[in-house]
């Protein structure tokens, strides 16, 4: 390695700040990931998928401080779940439930020195597969340097959800978490994630979904927090399996959520949805890449963004239908509601199709509150601010309705209503 004094390459500078965990079953995967990171280099503005989002805040050596804000109860605290708590990216056993549940094995990434075969076969594997055709250096960095995380193996129907809670306690914390989740054939698991996590948060979740298995994911990011976050979900779907993910983001200075899904078994279903509401210093980027590589699979991308006061929303969504992936049903919609003239929405929908018997549709729109509807509501006595909130929630409904569980949906709608009330224009 070059002497530090000569080292001006930003990737090497970043690597020099971090320590590669050594020993144990994951070492080989980490070394490989580090090589991937070196070869790719950290993301830069000129990269195809970083044109709309500044990568520098996510890649610079020191995380920008984020003011702590703990005035709201964690969103899923009333929901029945096995809770696994991380403070600034470090597992907190005292605040967590016992890591035990019927049909499920849960281990802490860093506790596991033994050669666990299933995790070894997945850790960094789905991430690596997801580096083609688009490089994802922040995910490779994560695989190499992740300092904590959980390994979850689901062998049947999990009796309750697992809630990953990410607390932020230190103003300048910089956390790198990596989770690996494996669902055996026919297994069923719901993962809930919430909390700002750290001043800067890099998280990867690799999910391997066996034949006929079902994975649900509901995530709430933000809580009016200043944090920066780059997250990746890499999912591989087997035959007749289901993947459904919904993310609510309320504020946050910078959020980049990548979701990379590979439909490898016939008749699989993948839905990814997101609703975000941003006011002021807010930049939110949803980047989705769905690959259809089997027969009769269905994919849906539904993303809705409410932006005001200089907030910026980005959507980059791709559906790739490989040769032979006949009878693919792909759908993609991204929409923004711009509550004033300063808000901005940047969208790049992409379809790339190599099969001839498929249905793929996509749409993207930006708009303001419908004046006719607003007047109609006001003429019935609904004050303008409440009417605007109602119409905003109505706009978000298509995304929020992607959450199948009614109780969870209500919890998220409550959180949205609270945000709208606090951020009335």
């Amino acid at each position, binding site marked *: 390695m070059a002497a530090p004094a000569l080292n001006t390459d930003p990737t090497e500078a970043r690597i020099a700040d971090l320590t590669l965990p050594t020993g144990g079953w994951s070492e080989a995967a980490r070394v490989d990931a580090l090589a991937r990171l070196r070869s790719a280099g950290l993301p830069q503005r000129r990269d195809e998928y970083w044109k709309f989002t500044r990568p520098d805040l996510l890649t610079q050596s020191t995380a920008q401080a984020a003011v702590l804000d703990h005035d709201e109860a964690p969103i899923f605290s009333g929901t029945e779940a096995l809770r696994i708590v991380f403070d600034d990216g470090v597992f907190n056993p005292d605040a967590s439930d016992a890591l035990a549940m019927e049909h499920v094995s849960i281990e802490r990434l860093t506790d596991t020195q033994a050669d666990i075969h299933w995790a070894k076969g997945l850790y960094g594997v789905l991430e690596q597969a997801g580096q083609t055709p688009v490089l994802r250096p922040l995910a490779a960095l994560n695989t190499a340097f992740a300092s904590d995380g959980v390994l979850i193996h689901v062998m049947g129907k999990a009796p309750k959800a697992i809630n990953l809670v990410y607390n932020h306690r230190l103003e300048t914390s910089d956390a790198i978490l990596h989770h690996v989740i494996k669902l055996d054939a026919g297994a069923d698991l719901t993962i809930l994630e919430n909390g700002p996590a750290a001043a800067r948060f890099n998280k990867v979740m690799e999910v391997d979904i066996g034949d006929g298995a079902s994975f649900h994911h509901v995530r709430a990011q933000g809580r009016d927090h200043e944090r920066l976050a780059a997250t990746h979900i890499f999912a591989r779907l087997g035959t007749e399996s289901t993947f459904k993910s919904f993310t609510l983001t309320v504020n946050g200075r910078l959020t980049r959520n990548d979701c990379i899904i590979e439909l490898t078994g016939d008749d699989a279903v993948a839905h990814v949805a997101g609703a975000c509401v941003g006011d002021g210093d807010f930049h939110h980027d949803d980047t989705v890449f769905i690959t259809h590589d089997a027969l009769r699979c269905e994919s849906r991308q539904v993303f809705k963004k409410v932006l005001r006061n200089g907030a910026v929303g980005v959507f980059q969504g791709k559906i790739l239908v490989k040769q032979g992936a006949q009878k693919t049903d792909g759908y993609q919609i991204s929409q923004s509601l711009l509550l004033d003239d300063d808000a901005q929405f940047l969208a790049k929908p992409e379809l790339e199709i190599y099969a001839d018997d498929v249905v793929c549709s996509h749409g993207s729109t930006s708009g303001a509150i*419908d*004046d*006719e*509807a607003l*007047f*109609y*509501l*006001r*003429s*019935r*006595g*609904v*004050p*303008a601010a*409440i*009417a605007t909130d*109602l*119409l905003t*929630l*109505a*706009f*978000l*409904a*298509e995304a929020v309705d992607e959450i199948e569980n009614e109780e969870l949906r209500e919890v998220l709608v409550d959180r949205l209503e609270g945000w709208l009330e606090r951020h009335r224009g």
Partner: protein
Amino acid sequence: MLTIKDLRVKLEEEDKQILKGVDLTVEAGKVHAIMGPNGSGKSTLSYVLSGRDGYEVTGGTAHLGDVDLLDIEPEERAAAGLFLAFQYPVEIPGVGNMTFLRTAVNAQRKARGEEEMSAAEFLKVVRARAKELQIDADMLKRPVNVGFSGGEKKRNEILQMAMLEPKMCILDETDSGLDVDAMKLVASGVNALRDAGRGFLVITHYQRLLDHIKPDVVHIMSDGRIVKTGGPELALEVENNGYADILAEVA
């Protein structure tokens, strides 16, 4: 109840005077009808009273009781007791009809300093009122006016009126787009709300609706003014002879 004096209104965006001095008083317990040819300013009058954007009042006054309507926001006018049944009710995807009704009822109650209606009480009242208008549970659950037929939309307007119990109801061409049966149903909904404390202003092109909602007073509006006022027989005269004769007579 409703007192309009010399009301003059132009379009905000262009230099076009629509109302050129309207004088009208609707007393509590009475039904007034305004008839008139297309473009005479009937719908503009209803929009200006309810506070829609796009119009500039250049003169005159409009009061509901002693409330100066032109000085307050649309939602305040509603809370003061004004209700406009829209000619074209607006579709609002994503907002459930029931949520909408309950939000409106409670917002008005709150604005008037009254206690909000509980969910259970609201449900009981809305079900009863909906039944009278043959509005089924499914229509209450669906998003506001989305996928409703013309008749369903108008019945939904009357349901809102019944729930909000306004003092002064303006019906803007409520008969448009309705078949005879739907019109009868809407009219009976309106008639059920007639009482000594409530005034109605029914705007229509045709006498037909007035067979079912019998007016006390009929006004003819033309070119931004009320040019003739009479009893129910005036509506029959329009039906038989058209507007031309009446307009020629007053010219």
